[in-house]
C-alpha cells in the first residue's frame, strides 16, 4: 500500500452522544484510511448505528468532533455529509421505487440543474450504464423500475449512485442481511473494486466470517466505546468475539445455575417439530411446564419470526402442539383457546391498545369470559383488572387510565396481565423488555419467574444477551434460520451465545 493510501481521511475524535437515560457513544476514537475496507463489529446496542448516523449527519455529537482531511467539520444535515463525500447505504434503502434505475442514480444531478430544464433521458441512460458497468453490473437495464428489482440489486443501485456522487467514504449498514450467498459474492466484488479505486468502505456487519473475509481493519465496539482497532491478519472469530464480550455483567447471574431443577420426564407443554416459515428453516424444540426457555440470535437469524410463526400469524409448515393438541397455522384464536398467548415486540403497534383503558386492555384477550349476551360485564372486568394490577405491581392512577399514558414498563406489565387473564399454559414473549428502564426490567423478570414457578411454560425471544442469561435455564441460539446451539447449565454464558449467533 502506498503512503497516500495509508492516509487517514476521516477521523472520529472523542465523540460522545447521549440519549435520554443512555450513553450511546462514549468518547469514540477511530480513523478511516483512504482505500481500506474497515469493518465495525459489536453486539446489539454497542453504538454502531449511532456512530453511522453521526457520520451521515443525521445526528450531531454532544462532545468531540469529526475531522475530514484533518479539518474539523460539522454535518448539520445529511446533505452536508454527502457533499463531503460520505455516503451511507442504510438497510432501509433511500430509493424511489416508482422511478427507473437511471432516474434514481441521476437524481442528485437533477437536483442541481435548473428546474425548468428538460430531462436528458438519453444522457442519463448512458451515464447510468457507465456507472453500472464500472461496478460490473452492466446486465442491469437503466430503464427498469427500481420497485421491480431484488433487494440485492437495489443495494447495488444505491452503491452505484453513491459512487457516481464521488463518494470517498461509503458506509454499508448490514449490507448482506437480505442477500443470498451469490448476491453477497457480487457485493464483495463491488467492494473490492471500489477499494482498488481508493474509496474507503465502512462495513458494519454481524457476520464475522464475512468481516474476516473482506476487511483490512476491524474496529470492535462495546457499550458505546471503541474497544480496539486491529489489522485483519490471522484473526480468529473467537478472538473477535472475546473482544466484543468482555463486558462487566454486573449483577447478572446466570439463572441456569440457580434455577430449580426440572424433572426431565415432565411432559412438554409446547412441542415444535420441523417448523419452517419465512426466515426459519426446519427447527424443532420443546418447552416444559415451569421452564423459561430463552431464544437468542442476530436480527436476521429467524428468531424474530419465531413468535409470529408459533402463534399462527404467518404461514408455516411443521407441527406445533400445545399439551398434545396440534395448532393450526393462521389461527391465532385457536392458539389462544389451546393455551398459548403471545406478547409481541412492538408494544406500541401490535401489543397494546394504547388509546383504551388499563381495565379494557387487561381483559382484551378474554372478552367472552367478561361479557353476557354481547354486553360487557363492567364490574367483573374491574375486579379482574384490579387483581392483575395488584399482582403485577403496575403503577397506575386509576383503572380507567389510558394505556398510552403509562411508562413502558407499566405498559408491558398490563400487557403481561392481559396474557395471564387467558390462563395460558405457554407464554411466548418477544423482546419483553425493549425500551424499558432498568428498574422495571428487574420487576418484569421477577414476574416472569413467578409465572414460570406457577407451572406456565415461558418462551422468551430476546436480542439482549444478559436478559437471556439472567432468566433462562436453557437457551437456544439461532443462526440462518436454524438452531445453531442449545445451551444449558454452566454453558449458558455470553461468549457461548455470541459464538452460536455469529461464528460460522
Amino acid at each position, binding site marked *: 500500500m502506498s503512503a497516500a493510501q495509508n492516509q487517514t481521511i476521516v477521523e472520529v475524535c472523542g465523540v460522545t452522544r447521549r440519549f435520554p437515560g443512555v450513553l450511546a457513544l462514549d468518547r469514540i476514537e477511530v480513523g478511516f484510511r483512504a482505500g481500506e475496507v474497515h469493518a465495525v463489529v459489536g453486539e446489539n446496542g454497542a453504538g454502531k448505528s449511532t456512530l453511522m448516523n453521526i457520520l451521515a449527519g443525521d445526528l450531531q455529537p454532544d462532545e468531540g468532533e469529526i475531522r475530514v482531511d484533518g479539518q474539523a467539520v460539522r454535518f448539520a444535515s445529511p446533505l452536508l455529509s454527502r457533499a463531503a463525500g460520505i455516503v451511507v447505504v442504510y438497510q432501509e434503502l433511500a430509493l424511489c421505487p*416508482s422511478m427507473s434505475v437511471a432516474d434514481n442514480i441521476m437524481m442528485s444531478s437533477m437536483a442541481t*440543474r435548473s428546474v425548468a430544464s428538460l430531462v436528458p433521458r438519453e444522457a442519463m441512460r448512458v451515464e447510468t450504464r457507465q456507472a453500472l458497468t464500472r461496478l460490473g453490473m452492466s446486465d442491469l437495464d437503466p430503464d427498469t423500475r427500481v420497485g421491480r428489482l431484488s433487494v440485492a440489486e437495489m443495494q447495488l443501485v444505491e452503491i452505484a449512485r453513491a459512487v457516481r456522487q464521488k463518494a470517498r467514504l461509503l458506509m454499508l449498514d448490514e449490507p448482506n442481511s437480505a442477500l443470498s450467498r451469490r448476491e453477497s459474492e457480487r457485493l464483495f466484488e463491488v467492494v473490492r473494486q471500489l477499494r482498488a479505486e481508493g474509496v474507503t468502505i465502512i462495513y458494519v456487519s454481524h457476520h464475522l466470517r464475512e468481516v474476516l473475509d473482506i476487511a483490512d481493519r476491524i474496529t470492535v465496539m462495546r457499550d458505546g466505546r471503541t474497544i480496539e482497532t486491529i489489522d485483519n491478519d490471522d484473526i480468529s472469530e473467537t478472538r473477535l468475539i472475546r473482544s466484543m464480550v468482555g463486558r462487566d455483567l454486573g449483577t447478572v447471574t446466570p439463572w441456569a445455575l440457580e434455577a430449580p431443577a426440572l424433572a426431565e420426564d415432565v411432559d412438554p407443554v409446547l412441542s415444535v417439530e420441523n417448523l419452517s416459515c419465512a426466515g426459519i428453516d426446519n427447527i424443532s424444540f420443546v418447552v416444559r411446564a415451569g421452564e423459561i426457555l430463552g431464544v437468542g440470535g442476530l436480527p436476521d437469524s429467524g428468531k424474530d419470526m419465531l413468535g409470529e410463526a408459533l402463534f399462527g400469524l404467518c404461514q408455516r409448515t411443521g407441527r406445533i402442539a400445545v399439551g398434545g393438541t396440534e395448532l393450526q397455522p393462521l389461527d391465532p384464536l385457536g392458539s389462544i383457546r389451546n393455551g398459548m398467548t403471545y406478547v409481541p415486540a412492538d408494544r406500541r403497534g401490535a401489543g397494546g391498545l394504547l388509546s383504551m383503558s388499563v381495565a379494557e386492555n387487561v381483559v382484551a384477550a378474554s372478552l367472552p369470559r367478561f361479557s353476557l349476551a354481547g354486553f360487557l360485564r363492567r364490574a367483573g372486568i374491574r375486579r379482574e383488572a384490579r387483581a392483575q394490577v395488584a399482582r403485577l405491581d403496575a403503577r397506575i392512577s386509576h383503572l380507567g387510565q389510558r394505556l398510552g399514558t403509562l411508562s413502558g414498563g407499566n405498559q408491558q406489565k398490563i400487557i403481561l396481565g392481559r396474557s395471564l387473564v387467558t390462563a395460558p399454559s405457554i407464554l411466548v414473549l418477544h423482546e419483553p423488555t425493549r425500551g424499558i428502564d432498568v428498574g422495571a426490567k428487574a420487576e418484569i423478570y421477577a414476574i416472569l419467574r413467578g409465572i414460570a414457578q406457577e407451572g406456565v411454560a415461558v418462551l422468551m425471544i430476546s436480542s439482549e444477551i444478559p436478559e437471556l442469561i439472567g432468566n433462562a435455564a436453557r437457551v437456544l441460539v439461532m443462526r440462518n434460520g436454524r438452531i445453531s446451539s442449545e445451551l444449558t447449565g454452566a454453558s449458558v454464558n455470553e461468549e457461548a451465545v455470541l459464538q452460536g449467533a455469529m461464528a460460522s
Partner: protein
Amino acid sequence: MADAVSTGARTRSMDRLSLGRLLRAREAGVFIALAVLCLFLTFATDGFLTSTNLLNVGRQISLLGVMAVGMTFVLIAGEVDLSVGSIYAFSGLSTGMLIIAGWALLPAIAVGVLAGMIIGMINGLLSTYGRLPSLIATLGMLSIVRGAALILTNGQPVTVNLRNGAQPEVLSSFSYMGQGYLFGVVPMQLVFFVIIAACAWVILSCTNFGFRIFAVGGSAKAARVSGISVNTMKIWAFVLMGALAALAGILSLAFLPSGQAGRTGLGLELDVIAATIVGGASLSGGEGTILGTILGVLIIGVMRNGLVLMGVSPFVQELMIGLVIIIAVGIDKWSRRRTA
C-alpha cells in the same frame, strides 16, 4: 461494426414501440376499457359515433379534464387536494364580478387565476410546513374558500351580461372562451383542455420539474438525500392545481354564464379525484401520467354521454359511474399485482 451498433440501437427503439410494450404500458388497461366502452356504444346507440356527439363529449369533459390534469400533479407528489371545487367557484365568481364591474377581460381572468394560485399555495404551506395531512388541510380549505365565495357574492347568483354592467366587447370575448368554436367546429373549452394537457404532458415527462414531482412523491427520503426540496415541490403542485381549478371555474362561468356560490362546483373534487385515479394515478404518490388521466376523464365522460344517449335515468347513471370507478381501479390494481 458500425452496422452492428446501429441495428442494436434500432431493435432497442423498435422494442420500445412494439405491441407487447404498448400492452404492458401503465395506461393499457384504461385504454382497453375505453375502447370496449366506445365499441359497445357505437353499436348500442345511433348517435354516439357522430362528429357532433364526439365534439360534444369533448366539450363536456374539458373542465373536468383541466382540473384532473392539476390533480395528477398533486397525486403524483403524494398529496391530495379536496378544495378544488371551492376554488372553481371562488375564482369563477370573482372573475365574473370583476367583469360585471366593468373590468377588461385579461385583468379579470388574471385576478381569478391568481386567487386560485394563492389558495393553492396556502394548501401547500399547510400540508408541508404546517405538518397537516393534505386531506385535512384541504378539507378545511374546502369550507373556508366556499365560505369566502358566499361572503363575496352575498349568496346571490352572479350572471355575466350587459344588463349587469359588463362591457359589450369584454362580454363577447368572455362568452367566446366558454361557448365559442374554433374554426366553427371545435369547442373552445376543448381547445383549452388540449393545450393544457399537452403542456402538462411535456412538463411532467420531459422536464426537471416533472422529474422532481415524481421523485418527491415516490420517496420523500430519496428526494431529500438527493438534494431536492420536498416541500417546495409539493407547494408548487398545489399552486398549479389552484391555477387550473381557477381556470376551469372561469371557463365554466363563461359557458353558462351564471353561477352561484352555494351551488357552483359543489362536490366537483370527488369527480376530479375519481377521474385521475381511474387514469392510474395512485393516492400514495409517485404514480400517474397525463395520458392516463386523459383516458380516465374520457371514460367518465363517454360513460355519462352513452347513458344519456341510451335514455338511462339520471339516478341510474350516478350509480353506474360509481361502479365504473370501482371496477376500473380494481382491474388496474389487480393486474398490477399480477405483473409485479
